C-alpha cells in the first residue's frame, strides 16, 4: 500500500467512524463530540501556522472571535441567515488575519508571540469597548429562529452534529491536501530552515502571510460555527484563554500532524470532563496529566505515533 493510500484509509476511517458514532452515542457524548469537532477545527487552523509553518501565535482568539462576531453581527445587525452569516464570519477572519499577518510577520520568535498576544488583547478590549453592539462580557444568544438554515434547524442535536461533522471533514481534507501540496511543503521547509528556503528562491514572507490567512480563516470558521451551533456569542471567546487552548490541544495531539489537533482536543476535553466528575480540583488532575504527557510524549500523541510507528503520517 502506498503512503497516499494509507493516509486516505486512516483519515477516511476516522471520518467514517465519526459519522457512524452519531447513531450510537448517548446524548451527552453526542453533544460533546459535536463541540469537540468544532473546536478541533480551531486547533487545525492553529496547527497550520504553529505546526506546519513554525509560527507560534499567542493571539488566535482574535481569529476565533472575528469569525464568531462576524457571524453573530451579521445575524444581529443585518438579519442574515446562517449560510451568509457563516460567510460573514469567514470574511471577518480572513481580513483580520491578513492585517495581523502583514504587521506581525515583520517580527519573529518572541517578538512575534508578543505582537500576536497584544493584537488579540486589543481585539478583546474592542469587543468590550463596543459593548452597545457586541453586548460585551454578557454576550448575546442566537435564537433558534435565527439558526434555521434552508429549513434545517441547527439547534437540533442531530443536525448540529451533522453540521459540525461536515465542517470538520472539510477542514481535515483541506489540511491534508494543503500539507501534501508543493505549497504546504514550502511551509514545512520554512519551519525547518527559513534561511535555506529563502535561498532556494521562495518568498518566505508571502508564504507565511498566506499561512496566517489560511490559519486565521479556518479558526474563524470554527468560531462562527461554534456561535451558530451552540447559540451564544460572548467576549470570553476573545479572551487570552482561548488563545492558549489551541496551543495546548495541538501540543498534546502533535504539532505538524493532520490528526493531532483532533486527538489533542478530544483528549483534553475528556480529561477535564472526567476529572471534574471526580474532584473539584480537576484542573490539578488535568495539569498533572499534561505534565506527564509532555515528559513522555514531547511530540504529542500523534507525533509520537509518527516517530515510532507510522512514519508516513502527514
Amino acid at each position, binding site marked *: 500500500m502506498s503512503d497516499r493510500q494509507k493516509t486516505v484509509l486512516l483519515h477516511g476511517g476516522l471520518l467514517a467512524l465519526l459519522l457512524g458514532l452519531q447513531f450510537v452515542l448517548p446524548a451527552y457524548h453526542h453533544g460533546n463530540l459535536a463541540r469537540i469537532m468544532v473546536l478541533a477545527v480551531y486547533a487545525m487552523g492553529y496547527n497550520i501556522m504553529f505546526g506546519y509553518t513554525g509560527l507560534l501565535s499567542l493571539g488566535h482568539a482574535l481569529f476565533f472571535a472575528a469569525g464568531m462576531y462576524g457571524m453573530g453581527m451579521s445575524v444581529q445587525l443585518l438579519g442574515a441567515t446562517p449560510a451568509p452569516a457563516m460567510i460573514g464570519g469567514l470574511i471577518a477572519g480572513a481580513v483580520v488575519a491578513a492585517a495581523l499577518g502583514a504587521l506581525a510577520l515583520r517580527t519573529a520568535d518572541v517578538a512575534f508571540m508578543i505582537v500576536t498576544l497584544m493584537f488579540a488583547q486589543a481585539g478583546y478590549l474592542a469587543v468590550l469597548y463596543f459593548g452597545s453592539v457586541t453586548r460585551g462580557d454578557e454576550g448575546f444568544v442566537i435564537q433558534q429562529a435565527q439558526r434555521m438554515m434552508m429549513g434545517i434547524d441547527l439547534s437540533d442535536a442531530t443536525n448540529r452534529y451533522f453540521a459540525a461533522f461536515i465542517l470538520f471533514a472539510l477542514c481535515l481534507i483541506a489540511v491534508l491536501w494543503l500539507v501534501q501540496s508543493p505549497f504546504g511543503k514550502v511551509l514545512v521547509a520554512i519551519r525547518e*530552515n527559513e534561511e535555506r528556503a529563502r535561498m*532556494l528562491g521562495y518568498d518566505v514572507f508571502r508564504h507565511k502571510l498566506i499561512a496566517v490567512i489560511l490559519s486565521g480563516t479556518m479558526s474563524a470558521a470554527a468560531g462562527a460555527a461554534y456561535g451558530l451551533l451552540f447559540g451564544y456569542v460572548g467576549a470570553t471567546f476573545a479572551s487570552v484563554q482561548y488563545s492558549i487552548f489551541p496551543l495546548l490541544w495541538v501540543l498534546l495531539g502533535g504539532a505538524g500532524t493532520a490528526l493531532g489537533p483532533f486527538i489533542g482536543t478530544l483528549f483534553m476535553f475528556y480529561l477535564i470532563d472526567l476529572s471534574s466528575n471526580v474532584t473539584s480540583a480537576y484542573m490539578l488532575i488535568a495539569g498533572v496529566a499534561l505534565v506527564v504527557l509532555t515528559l513522555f510524549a514531547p511530540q504529542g500523541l500523534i507525533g509520537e505515533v509518527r516517530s515510532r510507528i507510522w512514519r508516513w503520517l502527514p
Partner: protein
Amino acid sequence: MTLLSTRAMTKNFAGLTAVNAVDFDLPKGEIRALIGPNGAGKTTFVSLLCGRIEPTSGTVEFDGADISHLPAHKRINLGMAYTFQITSVFARLSVFENVALAARKRVHGTAQVAQAVHAALDQVDLNDRAEQIAGDLSYGHQRLLEIAMGLVQRPRLLILDEPTQGLTDSEIDAFKALVRGLKDTTTILLIEHNMSVVMETADRITVLNFGEILAEGTPTEIHADARVQAAYLGTG
C-alpha cells in the same frame, strides 16, 4: 559577455570592512575560482551577490540588469543558486525532499520532480540514500546533498562555497569531473581551499585578501604571482 558584475561592492561589519570596494566581472560560461586566506571575505562577497546579506554600498548586475535592490529570493529566481559553506540542509526532512524543494521552483508535477531529483542525486552519487533523513547523513554526504540542491535548480550561475570540504579523495575527483561537465550550461563561481580542485577546474582565479582583490588571472598566472604566494599559497 558578462553574466555578473559588481561595482564598488562594500560590506562593513561593526568597524570591520569584510569586503572593500570590489569591482568584479564574471563572463558567461566561465568557471571562476575565488580563493583567499581564512577571513578574506569570500563568503561575505558571494553572499552580497545572491542577496543573502545586504551590502553597505555598491551595485550588482546580473545578465545586464541591476539587481542591487532585489531581495534574495528574486535573485535566485533569476537563475542563481547558492550552496552554503556551513552545511544548511533541511535536517529533519528526507534527502529526496531536500532536493525536491529545490527542484519545485523549476519543474512541476510529482513525476517530473521525482525525475529531476533522482537525476541530481545521481550526479553526486547519493541516489541510494534518497529516503534517509538528511540530518543522519555523514558530513561529506550532506555537502554532496548541498551540491545536488544547487544542481537541480539548473542555475545560470552556480555559487559553490567550499563544496569539497569534508569529501573523500574519490568524492573530490568525482566533483572535479562533475564541475567540468557543467561547463557548457553553467557559469560557476567556486570558493575553494583545495588547490588541486582550483587548478584542475577553474578557467580563471580571483584572489581575495582583506576584502580586496589581490590578483586575477589564469591558474598558471596566479600560481606564479609573487604577491599571491606571499599572502596565501605560501602559507596555505
